Structure formats: structure tokens, C-alpha cells
């Protein structure tokens, strides 16, 4: 079970900024998130960075209980 954090347009599409989602690795958690939130979220995800515990993580990275997975759409600070 990963703690999931969603920001900007990803948060809008998901309807929440925080969630908990099952999955053995990053890709599994993201697949489950797309199923839960729908195609609008999947669109945003395609252009987003994904961090696990504060670091960019590939799809095959194992997710341990309590890990924090974050979906970070293109940024617009400044």
C-alpha cells in the first residue's frame, strides 16, 4: 500500500491530493490510480514525473508499505 500524493492538474483530475493505493511496484500503483481516477488523470500522468520517497522512480521500482509515491505534472513556479 503506497501513500499517494497528487499535485496541480493531477490533483484536480483525481479529485484528491492524497490517497492510498495498492501495488507491488510503481507501475502497478499508477495503473490502479488510472483505473480509479479515469482517463483525464491518465492524460495528465503521461506528461508527469513520478517520485517515490522524493526521488524519481522507474515503473519497476518496488513499492514497500508506507512508501510515498507522488505524481508531479509539469511545473510552473517562479
Amino acid at each position, binding site marked *: 500500500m503506497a501513500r499517494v500524493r497528487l499535485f496541480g492538474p493531477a490533483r484536480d483530475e483525481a479529485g484528491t491530493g492524497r490517497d492510498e493505493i495498492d501495488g507491488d511496484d510503481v507501475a502497478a500503483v499508477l495503473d490502479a490510480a488510472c483505473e480509479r481516477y479515469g482517463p483525464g488523470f491518465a492524460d495528465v500522468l503521461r506528461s508527469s514525473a513520478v517520485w517515490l520517497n522524493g526521488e524519481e522512480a522507474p515503473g519497476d521500482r518496488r513499492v514497500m508499505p508506507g512508501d510515498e509515491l507522488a505524481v508531479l505534472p509539469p511545473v*510552473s513556479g*517562479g
Partner: protein
Amino acid sequence: MANVAAVEGGDDQALGDRAVDDWALVTEDPLPVADALAWAVLPACGAIVTFCGTVRDHSDGRDGVVALDYECYPEHATARLAAVAASARERWSGIGRTAILHRVGELAVSEVSVVVVVSAPHRAEAFDAARYCIDTVKRTVPIWKRETWASGSGWAECSHDLRDPSDAAR
């Protein structure tokens, strides 16, 4: 939410006893521009460049912008600002002090959203490093801007894929 952190840089042998400090801050409060400028003053530095980003009343295709709402990943935004300052110091070793401050939450037109202050012995590296800092902040810090304009609201369309400060191109 007020996520505040000051990061003090370590000693650098090449710079002797001169203080080498970086100050990174993410806050919902108005940014302390004058404090940052005063803090950057050092006897060995003859140049201080201050950049302020302010809320503009328009963006591409959006006239009459009345407010911006900045959202951040609070657990990581400050550390990323500090990483930008550290990366500037790797490129311009003569930098004295660097402050990078970013405001989050709701801002009105003309309010200051971001401040970069760099002091250096000479103006060229102060200008170059300050320019590098603001350009890199825009690409590497997890902050998102939502615009409210005359006829609607939405996330800023001028956005960048999130990158790491160590490999963000200038």
C-alpha cells in the same frame, strides 16, 4: 502551511574564512526581500543582484488575470530551492551568498512570488548566477501555478517537465 528552512553552506577551503551561505525558503507569507538583500551583503562582494518575480495581470491568451494560487510539494520544495543554490555555487565558485525565496498560496497582481538574491565579488557572476537560479527554479522545483482571470481559471500553460537541478539545462 508555512514550510520554512534556512540552509547554511559548509566551509569551502578555496574561499578561506569567508562565509558561504545559501538561504532557501518557501512560505505563505510576503517574501522578506529587504532582509534577503541585507543578508547577502559581504565585505568581499562588490555586487548584489536581486531578482523579483511579480504576479502579472495577463498570460498567454488570458487577459485580466486577477490572482494566482501557487501549490507546492511542501516536503520537497525547500530542499529543491536549496539544491538550485548549491548547483549555482558549483558553477560560480566565487558567489558570496545566495537566497532563493518562493511564496505559495494565493497572491494578488503585483505581489512578489519569487526572489533570488546573489552576491559576488563582481557583477558578471552575480548577474549570471541569479539568472541561472531563476531559470532553474522554474524547471526543477515542485510548484504549480493556478491562474484566475476575467473569464475563468486554470493551471498555467507555460510549464516545464520537472527536472533535477543537477541536470537542468540552462
